[in-house]
């Protein structure tokens, strides 16, 4: 039998959506003169703003609907508010947001502990399923992590072999410097 890849016309649906006009394809611009005037549409009903919503400074006002999943709070919220003072064209917008995300992770752990909940990080990372399907990979990964932690700990706690020389005080140094 002829392989389908050498004669795709036998494939169900082959060429069914071909359109010679489809180049470079959708969307063709179907604008009307009104579309060049900016906010010309009749806006939907506006969702009442009952929480703090950070908004891009590249648009006038808030959108008609918005999510309410996690309003800004804590230190990460402070950083996010700073970020939203800058446009989406600025590193001062995006980089603080990435920092805020990392701060937020620590806040999440602290919040868990404050509520008496010790997060089950092993389960949250899905390691049980990795243990089931890739024991070797998981062991290697955990071993590498342990090695990095151990190495870092040793580096940070290592005492210098040389005995410390007491620094001469400024007054002593001045005294020595005098003829």
């Amino acid at each position, binding site marked *: 039998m002829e392989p389908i890849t050498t004669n795709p016309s036998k494939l169900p649906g082959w060429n069914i959506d071909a359109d010679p006009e489809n180049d470079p394809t959708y969307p063709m611009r179907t604008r009307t003169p009104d579309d060049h005037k900016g906010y010309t549409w009749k806006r939907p009903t506006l969702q009442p703003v009952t929480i703090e919503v950070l908004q891009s400074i590249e648009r006038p006002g808030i959108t008609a609907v918005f999510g309410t999943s996690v309003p800004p709070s804590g230190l990460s919220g402070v950083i996010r508010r700073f970020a939203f003072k800058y446009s989406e064209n600025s590193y001062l917008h995006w980089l603080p947001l990435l920092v805020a995300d990392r701060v937020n992770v620590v806040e999440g752990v602290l919040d868990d502990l404050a509520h008496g909940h010790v997060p089950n990080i092993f389960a*949250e990372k899905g390691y049980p399923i990795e243990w089931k399907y890739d024991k070797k990979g998981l062991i290697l990964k955990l071993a590498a992590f342990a090695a990095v932690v151990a190495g870092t700990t040793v580096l940070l706690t290592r005492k210098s072999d040389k005995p410390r020389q007491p620094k001469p005080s400024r007054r002593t140094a001045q005294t020595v410097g005098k003829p």
Partner: protein
Amino acid sequence: MLAMEYRGPRRIRVTQKPMPEILHPEDAIVRVTRSCICGSDLHLYNGNVPDTRVGQTFGHEFTGVVEEIGSEVTKLKVGDNVLVPFNIACGKCIFCKQGLFGNCHEAAPQASAAGGFFGYSHITGGYNGGQAEYVRVPYANVSPTVIPPGMDLDDAVLLTDVVPTGYQAAEMGGIQTGDTVVVFGAGPVGIMAARCAWLFGAGRVIIIDKEDYRLEFARNYSKCEAYNFQEIGDPVLFIKKQTDWIGADVCIDAVGAEAAGNVLQTITGRKTLLQAGSATAVHWAINSVRKGGVVSIVGVYGPTDNLVPIGNVLNKGITIRANQTAVKRHLPRLIEHIQNGVLNPKGLITHRLALEDVADGYRMFSAKLDNCIKTVLIPSTAGM
């Protein structure tokens, strides 16, 4: 209700959360019957997308039953079985009126570039997603679509993102009859893009990935050629050789920020976030396409800068098309294709998990365990 909750990079769990409420007259509350884990969720899962906040519920692919509607909802009624496209779209703004439902200007106050999506970072509106028992669905008159009688829920849930995204990837390629199409990435979207390339009349479809099981899946599902980039050497050179040194007519980036295959891109894009994700796939697409060809990008990147070979784009006269998918625009055609047996979305599903096992599901998909292609989550409240 039970819902997935993000706790930090590669850390999620299922917790009890308050029931969602009607906050706007066009809102509906939907009881989730199916939700999926998407490749785009992995960008959030890995902490690559700015303003992803601890405590949010992910999930932008879901079906459900309408439980409650706001006073301005006229197109749905309580009890309707609906599929909910991942875009939140008002249907009234200049962009929605052009069919650009992925670019609605009335759904995400935090950004002017992105539209509103369920369960994504706060730059797409800060909405909770469908990896939960219940979800708030704004603009319920616009995108949510009643599932046609007789349609399998597994087919329906894949119409909320994967199928339209694969289809739009091929459509944006402007494929002409007989074209050679190369798809980078054999995840669910890439596999669907390869399958849909035939519908536009492609003469040859090639898919590139690094996981043999995904390539084997693509060979069988998409009826295309499939190659492992770890075995073919330089993939760009390989494509040139395969196309008589001309290059492919259309290249599709179906990977986005998580791309492997280039050490420097991996370090700067994935590990240290000095770029908005690894741009390996888009590099390969630009460098593999022929002069005057089309590069279609549906892989998701973050909003900050990426190192891409723009000089080659200029010198080769390439057209680049990229967008979040306008799901609603494609639904009528794709429903028809499913009903006529042209497309079989549920064939992508390899795993079914209870919502409670969502952390395992993410790890399995992320680490590519157990030959995972597509995972469906089913809450106990789904009633089936």
